[in-house]
């Protein structure tokens, strides 16, 4: 793929043997490269500034918002983690996100297996029912969720968040996993049946390993979304000891609004796990984001 795009169609049709034309010599190419790398700077500069500022003392930051750290001030992190309780928020986010991803994926993979492998009366309808949530703004159900949780004693509880998050992940997980279960060759199942495997053994020992890459994609993508979610904990959690990171941030910004370097440290703490995860599993994240396109 060496297509070079020209900015304007002014010139007469260029010669066509593209493959032989050495790339990188044209003015157009240079402009394109400048544009692409220029936007990379725009995309990365705010994140870089966030990290750099989190390492600078408050006084320096006020004097010159754009400078580099003279001596990295890690005590911003220590103060955010301990004084502003980011340690607690972090643990809550970790518990809620992992719990919801594990539960949501577990129930989804079971359903997706049956819906992907078997046709029975109502199976199409059931699949449609489960994946309709992909296009439904589930936040709009928050008022009834609030009163449902109130009656179940789940208000102000991390378990409640886990349950509603796990349920919210079902449409996407079922959508992706059903497609993958369909692609598993039927001979595999038949061989296992001849060996005398029951349905549950067949699922656990033969089918589940076949969809492992899709499972990873689904879990990672769900994890990112839930780690970042703000609205459900904002409404459903009142006790600040149970805040997740995004809600903890809002409390933090109201309380420490005048201490910028501390705020930057809080932002980095909230963001870091995702960036690490992303860099470890770019392929999987990209698959999750582009799921359903170009298939």
């Amino acid at each position: 793929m060496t297509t070079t795009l020209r900015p304007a169609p002014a010139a007469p049709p260029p010669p066509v043997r593209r493959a032989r034309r050495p790339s990188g010599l044209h003015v157009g190419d240079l402009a394109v490269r400048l544009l692409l790398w220029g936007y990379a700077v725009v995309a990365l500069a705010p994140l870089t500034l966030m990290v750099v500022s989190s390492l600078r003392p408050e006084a320096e930051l006020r004097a010159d918002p754009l400078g580099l750290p003279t001596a990295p001030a890690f005590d911003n992190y220590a103060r955010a983690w301990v004084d502003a309780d980011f340690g607690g928020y972090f643990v809550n986010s970790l518990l809620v996100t992992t719990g919801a991803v594990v539960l949501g994926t577990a129930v989804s993979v079971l359903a997706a297996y049956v819906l992907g492998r078997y046709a029975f009366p109502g199976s199409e309808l059931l699949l449609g029912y489960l994946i309709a949530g992909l296009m439904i703004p589930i936040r709009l159900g928050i008022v009834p969720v609030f009163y449902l949780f109130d009656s179940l004693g789940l208000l102000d509880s991390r378990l409640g968040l886990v349950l509603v998050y796990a349920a919210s992940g079902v449409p996407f997980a079922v959508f992706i996993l059903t497609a993958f279960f369909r692609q598993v060759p039927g001979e595999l199942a038949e061989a296992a049946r001849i060996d005398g495997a029951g349905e549950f053994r067949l699922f656990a020992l033969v089918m589940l390993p076949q969809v492992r890459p899709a499972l990873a994609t689904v879990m990672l993508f769900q994890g990112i979304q839930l780690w970042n979610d703000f609205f459900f904990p904002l409404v459903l959690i009142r006790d600040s000891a149970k805040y997740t990171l995004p809600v903890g941030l809002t409390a933090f910004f109201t309380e420490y609004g005048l201490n910028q370097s501390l705020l930057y440290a809080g932002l980095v703490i909230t963001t870091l796990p995702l960036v690490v995860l992303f860099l470890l599993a770019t392929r999987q994240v990209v698959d999750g984001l582009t799921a359903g396109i170009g298939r």
Partner: protein
Amino acid sequence: MVRTERLTPARRRAARGLPPWWVLAAFLLPAVALYTLFIVYPLFSALQYSLYSWQGTQRTGFAGWDNFAHLFSGVYGDRLWRAFGHNLAFFGGTMLVQTTVGLAFAVLLRGTRTGRRFLQTAYVLPHLVSPIVVGYLWSLMLSPQFGAVNAALRAVGLDALARPWTGDPALALPTLILVNAWQWIGFPMLLFSAALAAIPPAYEEAARVDGASGWQAFRHVTLPLLVPAIGIVTVLTFIGNMNVLDLVYAMQGSQGAPAGATDVLGLLFYRTAFNNPDPGAIGQASALAVVMFVFIFGISIAATRVLRRGEARLR
């Protein structure tokens, strides 16, 4: 996007060995129960709530369409239309900036070999950051006195362009739209990249052999093939923008400062439901939820239908 497939031969073959119903139920029940209880049931409850009048958390009687009528009248009606207008501006601005630039970058990246992976990663990275973090980060950077943006403008001699970006009612909404586009740009880019990868390069090459310029080949060969992807991006952008809340909450607070200039439907809904002295709040918030639900889900379904018909014609 949401696509159920017809019976493939493989599934029909599998159907012959259909397990007993209780095995099927054991596999299906956990997901169906969880999803029904925490997603579907609340959405239907909201519809029911919206038809009753409320005193605090006490249901006091059937209200018919009163809650809905209240939404569109008086001061509340003004706020509703204002918020709706801001959502539409958000959608329009986002489509214009983020989708066109995302498409351009996807096309340009296709022809780039050096550093393509790095560039893609760089563009997508902001998308992974929580919208709350993005909002607070930009509100710090855009702060009039200590913000990095104005400091950078002054550093390069553009003092005249330094502004109170989020404090000026005329600038606040466009600023939010740009920040939102900064965060989201990687998303359409990735979707378009995936769609482009599915188009055989031979198509454009054939057009080039016939004498088309690079632009003409793109415009008349590749772009029409991207229409389904553009449609999907449009629907997803629409859903996202109609639900926008986190970013605005972080940057402009729950009231959509300054003076409601950045109020959106998501914030209005949140305030109506959970930040409202009115004893009938539950009914009214539920009515707003129903209206938003019908609007967003209805348009998405209709758009997807049209898209699928268009896609069928392309084949």
